[in-house]
């Protein structure tokens, strides 16, 4: 027989239990609040860290680098003809070949047409020596089209002296890392000379200085025009050593690199492969923060579990009489799960606000360096995820004791 009215009395009882024992509710909700706030705070920090360190790393490298890898000669060459069992055994060695990418313009066009590719630039990278008076420093330079390179590596934000774009109008201009400039004691407007691996020496004019997040790089690196780099290597204007490719989602670079290798016939290396230590370090960081944040949530879950178990053992008489009067097992489960969820919802709401406050305070904390303010900001997804995880933990923390309550045998209590 269908019911005429649904008065939702289970929910009514649940509300009364929740709000008549305010102290317990507040204590349990506070546990959730702190758990959620710390969970969201740590995860926001993690997202901020990741974004910052990725930004910093992509000032030096592209998502995918396409270059000519050194070929190693095959140590064992099996005989072509299988009846004559004569195999050649050779010492493995690097096959001497030039570093050039043949027909880079064509490959760049090809790559640009690929799906999800946002940018392709070419460069000439080489080791060089910087000279000024008696001092000489080994380093490396990258010949670039400065406007394209800036788009990819955001060179402009690292400039500390001179003008980046002066490079364009100065064919023998050079942008030096601050470390190189310090060692040579030069400033913007000074001349230095450089020598290439093929012993070409050229006088260059310092048009700007840059400082990246990595002082080791600043002590060796410089940028010049791609034509200047081709000249000091005695190469023609089609000579290119690397193609740099950026894609939509840099986290997927590994998948694309295989495709691009096949497409171009050169080695396409994803940034993760080139920076394994960096990737491993950020993995470690996220494992540590994730496990701390989960531990905190589990502790909050235990808080709810304990308080609910306590409530239930105090409410045995109520449970017994409700079951006698016709409440089904599910009705009883509902009473206590709803109580847990209400405590959870209160805790989560306050926790979201607390997390917002913590993130806000930290984002206004100055930490210095070229990082400036602490790299944390309001991450809607992290907040959403925190709220969901909080409610799920609460649900199960409530469900376990509630199921026990539903299975109480009323006779064993009522006959006492």
């Amino acid at each position, binding site marked *: 027989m269908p019911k005429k009215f*649904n008065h939702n009395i289970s929910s009514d009882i649940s509300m009364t239990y929740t709000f008549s024992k305010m102290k317990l509710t507040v204590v349990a909700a506070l546990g959730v609040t702190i758990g959620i706030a710390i969970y969201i705070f740590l995860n926001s920090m993690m997202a901020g860290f990741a974004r910052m360190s990725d930004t910093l790393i992509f000032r030096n490298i592209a998502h995918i680098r396409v270059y000519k890898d050194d070929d190693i000669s095959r140590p064992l060459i099996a005989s072509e003809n299988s009846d004559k069992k004569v195999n050649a055994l050779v010492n493995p060695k690097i096959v001497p070949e030039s570093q050039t990418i043949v027909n880079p313009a064509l490959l760049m066009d090809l790559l640009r047409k690929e799906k999800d590719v946002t940018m392709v630039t070419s460069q000439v990278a080489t080791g060089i020596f910087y000279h000024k008076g008696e001092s000489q420093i080994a380093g490396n330079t990258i010949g670039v089209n400065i406007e394209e390179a800036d788009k990819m590596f955001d060179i402009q934000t690292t400039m500390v002296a001179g003008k980046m774009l002066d490079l364009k109008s100065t064919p023998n201009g050079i942008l030096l890392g601050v470390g190189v400039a310090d060692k040579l004691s030069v400033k913007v407007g000074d001349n230095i000379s450089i020598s290439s691996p093929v012993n070409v020496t050229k006088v260059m004019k310092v048009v700007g200085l840059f400082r990246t997040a990595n002082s080791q790089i600043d002590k060796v690196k410089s940028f010049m025009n791609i034509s200047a780099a081709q000249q000091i290597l005695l190469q023609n204007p089609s000579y290119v050593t690397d193609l740099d490719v950026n894609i939509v989602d840099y986290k997927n670079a590994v998948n694309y690199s295989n495709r691009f290798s096949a497409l171009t016939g050169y080695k396409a290396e994803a940034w993760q492969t080139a920076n394994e230590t960096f990737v491993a370090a950020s993995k470690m960081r996220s494992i540590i923060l994730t496990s701390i944040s989960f531990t905190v949530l589990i502790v909050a879950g235990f808080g709810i579990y304990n308080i609910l178990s306590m409530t239930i053992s105090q409410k045995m008489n109520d449970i017994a*009489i409700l079951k006698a009067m016709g409440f089904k097992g599910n009705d009883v489960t509902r009473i206590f799960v709803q109580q847990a969820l209400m405590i959870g919802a209160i805790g989560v709401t306050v926790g979201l606000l607390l997390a917002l406050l913590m993130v806000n305070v930290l984002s206004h904390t100055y930490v210095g360096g070229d990082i400036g303010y602490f790299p944390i900001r309001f991450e809607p997804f992290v907040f959403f995820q925190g709220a969901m995880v909080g409610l799920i933990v609460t649900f199960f923390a409530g469900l376990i004791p509630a199921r026990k309550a539903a299975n109480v045998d009323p006779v064993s209590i009522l006959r006492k």
Partner: protein
Amino acid sequence: MSNEIILEAKKIGKYFYEPEKFRVLDDISFEVKRGEFVSLVGKSGCGKSTLLYVLSTMDTDYEGDLRIHNQSVTGMKQNQLAGIRNEKIGFVFQFHYLLPEFSCLKNVMIPALKLGNFSKEEIEHRALERLKMLGLADQALKPASKLSGGQQQRVAIARALINDPLIIMGDEPTGNLDSKNTDIVFDIFKQLSHEMHQTIIAVTHDNDFAKRSDRIIEMQDGKILGEVKN
């Protein structure tokens, strides 16, 4: 009293296994008619409460067949039995088992809110009527925990009556009451059975109470020893 059979026990048997196996109910058979006021008496430990909990449908671990309102309830699922209790059976125990956080009125309303046959306003009205009948109209909005023992027991009776159950079952319903309150409860039961034609089955060890009911079933060692019709 009509001739309509409301409850029928056929060869009810039951064992307890702790501390050792023994037959606590042994082939109990009887019928109860609509509007009958039955007392279940016997020495302490003879199995009265155990029998009542089998009849209440809460204890399903028994042999034999139990029929309530011409329907066999033996072997039914827990959820079905809960529905039958909600609609057809009211309970009064030695202890009141009121929910202490709720007002008397809300306590009385709970079984009706669960059943959902009436609107909330109608249920409130019906609950007030029953509290009035039990002389508790002025206590309706007080928390149940603030009443005296006799008053609490009367609220529990009002709650048992809210859904107009066919059967009201009581396990020593006057066990904790003084003689004045016992008389009040007895009169209510009498009135319910004779005027409202509700069936009452009450376990008691109060001989006076039993003698004034319609019918006494006496038990001994898990068996029915005999019956007296008053």
